[in-house]
């Protein structure tokens, strides 16, 4: 008994040491971001510093005052697009995953393999063709064009499908059917709550991916009031020599992380809640 206690203590020490080391390493990276956000352009350009500069407020001010880029508007755009994309892609993928998991219909296997194959096609490649097509049909650049194509998210589908494989028993659905619940109600009231942790995870991942997505939006967004955060960062980074200032670039990198941390904290709580809920039911 004492021996295993000593063992446990050693194990714990080991685990905590690794966790803390890892945490320090990651904190260090974010620390360097913050430090750079507090320094002047010239100082940043000349190299690295371990200490904060006193330019944090000024960088923030310069960033917000720059009406060529309108950061707050870009934040708003990014937020709307990322939220809608995360919500829709998770929901649509869950529907699809559930369908392929549960129902037996002709072409089901084909569809599953097909979506997996889709996942392996680099997204950058489809983008180029998509833009040519969008232009040829004379599209209008709006949120819609950025959100809808992202709705069919093969990786999200794949994860939810794999998760359903490990967690959903057919008996549960059958029991609900016997109780007279319709298929849509079963999906919304039984399946969705059951896979809440997986949905929360995919919501976070989709949100982050959309928030940080540069490639596709950069090819179609040109109007100043539609720009998203990554586009604004790339513009700032490519400023002309007479107005080039790295301080606001780092400042914006720091600012752009906060919304994602908040989304993560909110939804990672859902992950834990979902799991406890599930176990109560089980």
């Amino acid at each position, binding site marked *: 008994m004492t021996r295993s206690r000593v063992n446990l203590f050693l194990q714990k020490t080991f685990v905590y040491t690794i966790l803390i080391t890892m945490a320090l390493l990651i904190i260090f990276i974010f620390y360097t971001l913050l430090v750079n956000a507090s320094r*002047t*352009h*010239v*100082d940043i*350009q*000349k*190299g*690295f510093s371990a200490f904060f500069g006193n*330019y944090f407020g000024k960088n923030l001010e310069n960033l917000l005052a720059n*009406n*060529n*880029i*309108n950061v707050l*508007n870009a934040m708003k755009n990014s937020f709307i697009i990322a939220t*809608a994309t995360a919500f*829709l892609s998770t929901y649509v993928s869950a529907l699809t995953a559930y369908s392929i998991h549960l129902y037996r219909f002709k072409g089901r296997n084909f569809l599953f393999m097909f979506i997996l194959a889709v996942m392996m096609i680099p997204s950058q490649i489809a983008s180029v063709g998509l*833009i040519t097509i969008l*232009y040829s049909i*004379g599209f*209008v650049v*709006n*949120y*819609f064009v950025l*959100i*809808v194509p992202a709705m069919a998210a093969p990786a999200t589908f794949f994860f939810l499908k794999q998760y359903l494989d490990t967690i959903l028993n057919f008996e549960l659905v059958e029991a609900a059917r016997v109780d007279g619940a319709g*298929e*849509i109600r079963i999906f919304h009231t039984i399946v969705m709550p059951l896979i809440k942790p997986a949905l929360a995870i995919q919501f976070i991942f989709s949100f982050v991916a959309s928030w940080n997505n540069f490639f596709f939006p*950069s*090819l179609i967004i*040109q*109007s*100043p*009031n539609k720009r998203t955060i990554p*586009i604004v960062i*790339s*513009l700032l*980074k*490519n*400023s*002309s*020599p*007479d*107005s*080039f200032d790295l301080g606001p670039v780092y400042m914006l990198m720091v600012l752009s992380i906060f919304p994602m941390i908040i989304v993560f904290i909110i939804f990672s709580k859902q992950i834990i809640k979902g799991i406890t809920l599930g176990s109560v039911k089980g």
Partner: protein
Amino acid sequence: MKKLFVLLIALTLGLSLAACAENTEAGELKEEGKVLNIRVWNDEFIGRFRTFYPGYLETKANGQDLLDDGTVVNWIEVANDNNGYQNALDTALLNQDSAAADDKIDMFLIEADYAKKYANDTYAMDVIGELGIPEHTLSQQYQYTKDIVTDDSGILRAVSWQATPGLFAYRTDIAEEVLGVSDPEDVQALLDSWEKFDAVAEDMKAEDYVMISGFDDAYRAYSNNTSAPWVNEDGEIIVDNQIIEWIKQTKTYTDNGYNNQTGLWSDGWFKDMGPEGNAFGFFFSTWGINFTLKDASKADAEGPEEVGNGLYGKYHVIEGPASFYWGGTWLVAAKGTDNPTLVRDIMMKMTANEKIATDITLQTEDYTNHMAAMDAIANDEEYGSKFLGGQNHIALFNESASTIDMKNISPYDQGLNESIQQSFKDYFLGTITWNQAWAAFEEKISTLYPELELKTIPADPFA
């Protein structure tokens, strides 16, 4: 099931409505007057325009500019990472005919490296014939800024507000210590050929200084003096002797420690410009002094701009061992523009107006494309740049600008210049051989330009 569809349809509708709402917003602008769409890859011209264009009234919160005739200038800024600017421009130009009047591109900016691609009958209006800018108003512009954007049938397709002669900026404190002289004339006399330049590099090394900071510093001074374009008429790449000379010099400098092995725009390169650096000088162009060198030279970035703050006042500029040019931006009037009169006015005011050209130079110390205006400042004995210790750098540029010749540019310059610098970095560092470096060059260019060929690898000058 129905509910689901209703939900989806509602969402779709909601989103399209949001889109419609934005469309009407754009519609309101139409009522206000015309919209001028200008495409740029950074904010340099935007700043110039706002400070110096007489018709400019104010910038609205959404980044659009209001002009005195009620026109709104819509700046479409797309960064040039990964060819992004040209890609976006190409797509928009392809759809120029079908675009609504207020969505058409009215004006766009181009650089020397790909000027030929756009300064032609397909995309650009004839500046004199179609836009109606009288030829005599452009007579004060440097001829080379016109030659480069004149198409095969001799029609001028674009105009520029700047001329960009190259220079060598050196530190007077190091010159005094190592060479015993520091005046521009004396230093120029010691550096007016590459042989002399190399000899001074050796002297610098002896005193623990480096002649230049990195591999690519001197590149433009060589590559802009080639005897023929990069590519001949058969699509064959011809490696000019000047390029070989650059490789030879850089390899020697690297092996002997005459440079700090930095790359352009890297941390180490900027550091070398400041008080902690030990580099004697930098090859630059007009725009490099006030926008790059001045900031980097300070000890206290936010300190006053005066002698005592780092190297402020300690840099001087000379022509150096070879005259060259570096950079340049042109304004193009897009075919199909619905605002030709305004475009014409902007072109005339921003590039061919003596008063505005003078103002730009006096305020920004940049060199503008107006010979008479530049002559006046060059001959003004009171004029001098405080950062350059009171030196009248405009006088220096005035001499070298008239010698610029861009007849050897080719549409492949950007990719080939970049590829050769990248490929030879490993060679300078000694990790690959001469032949391997050329193989790497071939590997890069065959990806960029399928129609080009490097038939013969130049002989190794060290073999």
